[in-house]
């Protein structure tokens, strides 16, 4: 039997009151693939991500992770994933190293502090931060450094599946370039599956192999990431080149 896909969304509908954010959204992420979900701001990308993580209930449809219903094995599922939230979502009451090692310190295994700290410093080094930031608090770091800490935290448990919500949004071009290189590096080094959300069209082809465009609550285009700049006047081309859909021929 073929291995089931890492993640499948099947006809997911999600409403907030009368606002239908996702309208029969279906997508499939195969194992080992780096998948990018693009779409305009407020289009429901983060909502889709939270549904994939089992953080938000949905109204209709089904989410399957490795062939099983997500709701039935959510805790094992969460043990195998790493997430970088939009904006980082670092715990601001804890120093950087405790943020990174949080799953080790407070999770099932309860590592001792010294071991956790050295593993955290190792992960920090992997994302290009030296050990001197370990004792600082998230609020003392720049936006780019906070993203790096968030990535280090997501990598701490050696996940099989990495979720990244807008890793380069809000950074200056230099920082954004550095984070792009870092993520591309990390993904090239491992066999992780990745799901990245972005609206940064320079970033997407460099870190992903497959791209899907979310518009109006569902996927309107899906294909190879390297081809996204080759589109003319269709919905993808308009999105990539910043034209409105009313300009469609």
């Amino acid at each position: 039997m073929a291995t089931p896909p890492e993640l499948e969304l099947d006809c997911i509908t999600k409403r907030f009151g009368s606002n239908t954010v996702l309208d029969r959204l279906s997508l499939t992420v195969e194992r080992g693939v780096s998948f990018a979900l693009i779409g305009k701001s407020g289009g429901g990308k983060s909502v889709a991500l939270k549904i994939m993580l089992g953080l938000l209930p949905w109204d209709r449809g089904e989410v399957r992770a490795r062939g099983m219903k997500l709701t039935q094995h959510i805790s094992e599922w969460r043990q195998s994933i790493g997430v970088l939230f939009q904006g980082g979502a670092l715990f601001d009451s804890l120093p950087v190293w405790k943020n990174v090692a949080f799953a080790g310190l407070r999770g099932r295994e309860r590592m001792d502090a010294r071991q956790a700290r050295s593993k955290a410093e190792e992960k920090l080094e992997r994302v290009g931060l030296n050990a001197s930031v370990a004792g600082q608090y998230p609020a003392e770091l720049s936006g780019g450094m906070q993203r790096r800490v968030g990535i280090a935290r997501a990598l701490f448990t050696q996940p099989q599946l990495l979720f990244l919500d807008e890793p380069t949004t809000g950074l200056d071009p230099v920082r954004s370039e550095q984070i792009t290189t870092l993520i591309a590096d990390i993904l090239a080094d491992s066999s992780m599956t990745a799901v990245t959300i972005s609206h940064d069209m320079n970033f997407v082809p460099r870190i992903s192999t497959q791209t899907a465009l979310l518009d109006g609550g569902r996927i309107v285009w899906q294909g190879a990431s390297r081809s996204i700049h080759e589109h003319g006047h269709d919905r993808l081309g308009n999105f990539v080149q910043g034209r409105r859909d009313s300009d469609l021929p």
Partner: protein
Amino acid sequence: MSPDPQSVRHGDRFLLPFRAIGRPVIQICRHVGQLTVFLVTAFRHLLTPPYYPTEFAQCLYTLGFLSLPIVGLTTLFAGGALALQIYTGGIRFNAEAAVPAIVAIGMVRELGPVLCGLMIAGRSGSSIAAELATMRVSDQIDALETLSIAPMDYLVIPRIAAATVAMPILVGIGDIIGILGGYLVGIYRLGIGEVGYLTQSIEFLDRADIVSSLVKGAVFGFIIAACGCYCGMNARHGARGVGIASTSSVALSSTLIIAANFVLTDLFF
């Protein structure tokens, strides 16, 4: 889905008052229901590991120890004012001698717990709500869940447990300081004999008075932390949501404290 007000047809106008009453009633029912579900879930998490003793200790420190100054100051002045008022009343019946006893009973049975409850609701309840609401709107609570840590275990239980343990102690200390306030006013302002005051205060206090005071403290502590956590965990919509969470936690817990105070007073009557 609720129809928007503009779609109300002319003939439906007479329904408007019912709508105006019905909406808030439904809102209140929904909140009561959600709060109940929240508390039942919290209770289930209380009975099952994991536990986070470090977080519990930290909450005990911030909720309990750091609240001592505010509790001490308010009860000291309240005790003094109570002594003045009771003296004013007492002198009309030639009952000045009863001032120490009545101050002690009033302080322990009523003023101590209620004052501490309201002060701590303002100080700690609002800060619990604001902290959790900030964590909610900045996705930190979602991050906890994806790191396989249940926010109920890690954030809610330590706060509720710490408040329930710390409040009786704070109330006990507040009672003593309040009686002391009455004592200071009694001897320096009212000229009541220094020797008799304290013995009289204590002689007339029953064990039941003290038990009721501490039980009220524990219940109020529970209410404060539960409301703070409930409002904080359910916050939404950015910075504005944090403000709303913190105000509504204080409004909700103060109301519940006053109501619970009546019920408990009636129980211990």
